[in-house]
């Protein structure tokens, strides 16, 4: 018997990294899961690798577009009949957004905000419109240790992840008596594919090598190493489960003891 038997989940950015690990953990606990991503090819590969038959489904969409975000939620309901769990997890920073504030472009700021914050808002709003009538739901947003503290040269990401944490706190109070919880996970640095792709550019903009960048994050933690996708997945299972009905508005640090609060 799984902790999520019969539950329907949608995981944005679910083909790789944290989203993929969490989708697999949800499946293991008995949920049916929609994973989303931009690339149909990566989506198909993820489905092949996950190999969970009709319990997992891929919907392609670009989370930087509102209509795509809304279609991901509607697509989940169309496929499996409802949505119990939204893991708004897609996000990141493009290389053009790594700059000190004094040199930051409008486009750089806007791109990161759209990818991380607007996507979370659009999917959350659409999901709540299904969850409020059914008086049950679990919303989990991927924030970051940068949702609580700030790193230089990465202001757009820090801003977007702080905004997600603010949205989570407000929404939690709106729906707290309706059987719906809203929380964020705030991971430390994890060496996901996206970090491997964009990390070297961020490192360069900070005047260090990629290895030094990983080291920089690891050194700030208590565990003196970076986190793993499975760490986040396990917390998401707990938050998504029935027993977590009393945990809401929480910004859970999964950062090996980095964040001061």
């Amino acid at each position, binding site marked *: 018997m799984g902790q999520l038997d019969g539950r329907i989940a949608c995981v944005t950015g679910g083909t790789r990294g944290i989203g993929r690990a969490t989708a697999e953990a949800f499946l293991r606990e008995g949920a049916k899961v929609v994973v989303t991503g931009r690339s149909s090819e990566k989506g198909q590969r993820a489905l092949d690798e996950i190999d969970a038959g009709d319990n997992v489904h891929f919907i392609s969409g670009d989370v930087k577009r509102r209509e795509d975000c809304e279609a991901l939620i509607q697509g989940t309901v169309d496929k499996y009949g409802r949505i119990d769990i939204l893991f708004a997890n897609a996000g990141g920073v493009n290389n053009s957004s790594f700059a000190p504030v004094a040199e930051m472009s409008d486009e750089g700021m806007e791109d990161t905000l759209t990818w991380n914050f607007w996507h979370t808002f659009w999917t959350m709003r659409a999901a709540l419109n299904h969850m409020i009538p059914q008086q049950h739901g679990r919303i989990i947003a991927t924030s970051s240790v940068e949702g609580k503290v700030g790193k230089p040269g990465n202001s757009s990401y820090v801003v977007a992840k702080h905004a997600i944490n603010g949205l989570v706190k407000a929404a939690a109070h709106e729906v707290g008596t309706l059987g719906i919880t809203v929380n964020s996970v705030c991971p430390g640095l994890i060496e996901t594919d996206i970090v491997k792709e964009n990390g070297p550019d961020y490192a360069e903009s900070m005047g260090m090598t990629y290895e030094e960048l990983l080291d920089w994050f690891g050194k700030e933690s*208590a565990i*003196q190493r970076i986190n*793993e996708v*499975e760490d986040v997945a396990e917390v998401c299972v*707990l938050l998504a489960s029935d*027993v977590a009905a009393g*945990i*809401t*508005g929480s910004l859970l640090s999964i950062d090996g*003891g980095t964040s001061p609060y």
Partner: protein
Amino acid sequence: MGKLDGKVAAITGGTRSIGRGMAEAFIAEGAKVIVNGRNEEKGRICIEEINAGDSVTFYKGDATKQADVEGIVDFAISTYGKLDIMCLNSGGLANTAPVAQMTDEEWELEMDWNLNHVFWGMRKSFQHMIPRESGRVIVTSSVEGKLGKAGTPGYNATKHGVNGLVKGAAKEVGPIGITVNALLPGIIETDIVRSTGPESAVAMGVGTYENLIGMFTEESAIKRPNTVEEVAAVALLLASDAGKNMTGMLFPIDGGTMPY
């Protein structure tokens, strides 16, 4: 196969309420558990009710006494051979009052019960866990470890204190396989809250027990108290292998009460 197969846990204040919930959750996942309490009779009843044979043992001891707290670690080692998970969960208050009327005796009781007990138990556990490069310390703090209610100065101070202890200690042992975390529950209608609640309500200026519970739940998003099961589920995650990279956390289980 359980998440805690082969693990040994000790829980202060383990015979009832949150501690008892942790004990049952841990045993269900394969752990052997020492439950601690002051009262032999309550201990006997607890062991009978849990009904888990050799997997659970009662240790009589007063969490406000250093020798009793440290003795739990030795007892776990002599009973089950080691200690993997230490839950420093006991705590509370007796006759709270606003600062101006707070007695030294009450202040000292709360310091010993809520803060010193955690330090004593953590230090002794670390001395066993550090050479083994493995361990979990889980401290029951409170929303009052981040906020402050009028009329409970000792509780506010001690729970803030344990949160600080947890954060620093997590860094000391982080690289060697030991995690240290705090659970921050909102109000839960435990036996101890039911017994001390009516007097605390007067000291806190809200009159009745119902008003006391209401004062807490009104601040939450869920508008109800939390439950023992919610806290036990988080403790289980932190105690399991899946929690190996989670440390220094002040984990809120408060229905959205805490602002940060």
